[in-house]
């Protein structure tokens, strides 16, 4: 066991999978000698050399398109996109090819790749360095989307992702990169993709979140009087509907928290599923505490935009009082 940050846990997972399986290669912008702008790939270049840790030209569609080819040939590429805002140029290769290759070839060609992308606000970063585009990729069938919120989960989920036979978007909440440390086993282990985690048990209200806001949820819950069950989805596609539904059938009340804009965000999907599956159990409308339906503001206003603990707490009170 070691006491690791999220960055260190991911770094460790990369090292262990690369040690174990020489089909795993890392590519992207500045992932080599620089170790990535967040130092997630620190030390990899030295350890595994330039053929397994590759600084590519500055072109995200190229990175993902080439990774698709690498994966179809049987390798396990782990491309890094430097910031979520720069995933957009690769949207076409992701949705048009990576997501569809298995389906359109009826399984003849597959794309086992794990795209690592830092995500989300809260670190006073420049424009397009603080967005939360994950829901876009949830709407595209053929992809899986993972968002760890703790070092332990990050390591276990990344190992699962790299071993998964299908394309996975692995969003790393950059606000949590160095926010806290956690005991993480030295050995390799996996956390299953598609399974939520009950962070705090409770039976009056269910709070559902993923990524960085999970931390804000904990704070908000600590300040609340009710018995609140906090669920960290961990994987946002496929969604662990069972865990959500079981909880809300118990509590009858739910609050969903995410950073992305409200409209057509993933909160809508979670709320709809709850409504579909728990209709007769619901005692209050489900609340969505999210980013506003505005462009993510530059950092002077980012904390006004993000679902901070105070806004979450308020929503919890209202749901409780309904």
């Amino acid at each position, binding site marked *: 066991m070691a006491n690791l940050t999220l960055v260190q846990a991911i770094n460790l997972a990369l090292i262990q999978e690369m040690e174990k399986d020489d089909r795993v290669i890392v590519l992207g912008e500045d992932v080599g000698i620089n170790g990535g702008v967040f130092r997630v790939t620190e030390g990899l270049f030295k350890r595994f050399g330039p053929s397994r840790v590759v600084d590519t030209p500055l072109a995200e569609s190229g990175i993902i398109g080439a990774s698709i080819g690498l994966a179809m040939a049987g390798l396990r590429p782990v491309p890094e996109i430097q910031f979520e805002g720069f995933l957009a140029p690769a949207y076409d290769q992701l949705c048009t090819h990576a997501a569809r290759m298995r389906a359109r070839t009826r399984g003849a060609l597959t794309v086992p790749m794990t795209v690592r992308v830092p995500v989300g606000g809260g670190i006073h970063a420049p424009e397009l360095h603080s967005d939360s585009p994950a829901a876009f990729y949830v709407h595209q069938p053929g992809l899986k989307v993972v968002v760890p919120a703790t070092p332990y989960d990050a390591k276990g989920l990344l190992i699962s992702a790299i071993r998964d036979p299908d394309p996975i978007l692995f969003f790393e909440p950059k606000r949590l990169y160095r926010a806290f440390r956690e005991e993480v086993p030295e050995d390799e282990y996996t956390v299953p993709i598609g399974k939520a985690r009950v962070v705090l048990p409770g039976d009056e209200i269910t709070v559902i979140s993923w990524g960085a806001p999970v931390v804000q949820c904990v704070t908000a819950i600590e300040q609340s009087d009710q018995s609140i069950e906090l669920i960290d989805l961990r994987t946002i596609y496929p969604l662990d*509907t069972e865990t959500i539904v079981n909880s809300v059938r118990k509590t009858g009340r739910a609050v969903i928290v995410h950073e992305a804009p409200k409209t057509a965000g993933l909160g809508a999907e979670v709320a709809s599923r709850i409504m579909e599956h728990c*209709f007769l159990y619901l005692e209050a409308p489900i609340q969505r505490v999210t980013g506003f339906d505005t462009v993510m503001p530059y950092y002077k206003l980012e904390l006004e935009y993000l679902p901070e603990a105070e806004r979450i707490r308020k929503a919890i009170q209202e749901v409780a009082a309904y």
Partner: protein
Amino acid sequence: MPVRTVLSTNIEYISILDEHGEFDAKLGKDLISDEDVVKLYEHMTVCRRFDEIAFKLQRSGRMGTYPENRGQEAASLGAVYALRKDDWLVPCYRENPGLFWRGLPMEYILLHWMGDERGNQIPDGLYMTPQAIPIGTQMLHAVGLAWASKYRGEDRIACTFFGDGATSEGDCHEALNFAANLDLPVVFVCQNNGWAISVPAKIQCSAPTIAQRGLAYGMECVQCDGNDIFAMVKVVRDAAALARRSHRPTFIEAVTYRLGDHTTADDARRYRDSAEVEMWKKRDPLIRLRKYLVDRNRWDDEKERSLQADAKEQVAAAVKRAEEIAAPSTTDMFDSLYAQLPDQLRIQRATLRTACLGQDPSQLEGGIEASRQQGIEETVSEPGLP
């Protein structure tokens, strides 16, 4: 000297068997044996027949939109002939002659255009990706495939095909740039057929050649007569050798012409001159190849008649095979989406509905567990081509 020349370069054009049947014996020496020329000619003839029938299938409602390859047979065929059997082919949709030569059964292409994904379920060992519909995106996959083979220390290369229009896409640039700067063994074959649907090639590239796209990357680049199978074999063979030897990519512009409409959904008379088409008909790759063979006493009318009959039969058999394959079942769309179907999708698959009763998480008697088991059982026998 304050103004100094830091680069001088040029683009060459290669032709061996020209439109009049003139053959450059020096360049063409030992390029293709006469036996193989016969086989290539026969193959092109079958492909021509394939187009004719595919066109008719569409017109009679037995197939959807289809893009004829007519007039461009030499380009992909020459390229694939020049490659090794295990080199990756990453085509667009005008490379049927090359894909068939490699061994793709003709019914696969038919199935694809009949709206059936099983047409993309390329049999093992053919080393090709399926036809690419989104223009310009597939070249990056060739880059990755080539990269993987270099990574593994294999000497397999990748050859990708695309049109003049495709060279305008950003992905095309990124593919060329990756290959050049990361030293990857890719052969880029641009079939410049003069048109991207109704848009003439000069809107895609107003430079004198498309070949010079490669100059941007310091890449080998060459223009050739794409209707001349000898020229195609030569430039691709050279490019493949370079790629295998030193992992350097090459950009090849094969100048050719689309004799048919863009697809069966198009009417090329709306935008192009019949005079242009007539001129290009004279440059048909089949005409000159037949003349080459006749000149060398390798071909005659009798052989031609029997070839035509044979082509007819081969294509008819392929159509029959395509049409006899049982219709896909609705659940097929679920079964190849993921290696293992997620729970919600198992439910959708088992119930074939998205609407939800709102009463039970599974919509099924027995709950999620039952549906999961049912899903697993039902996905075991994955449908495919026989």
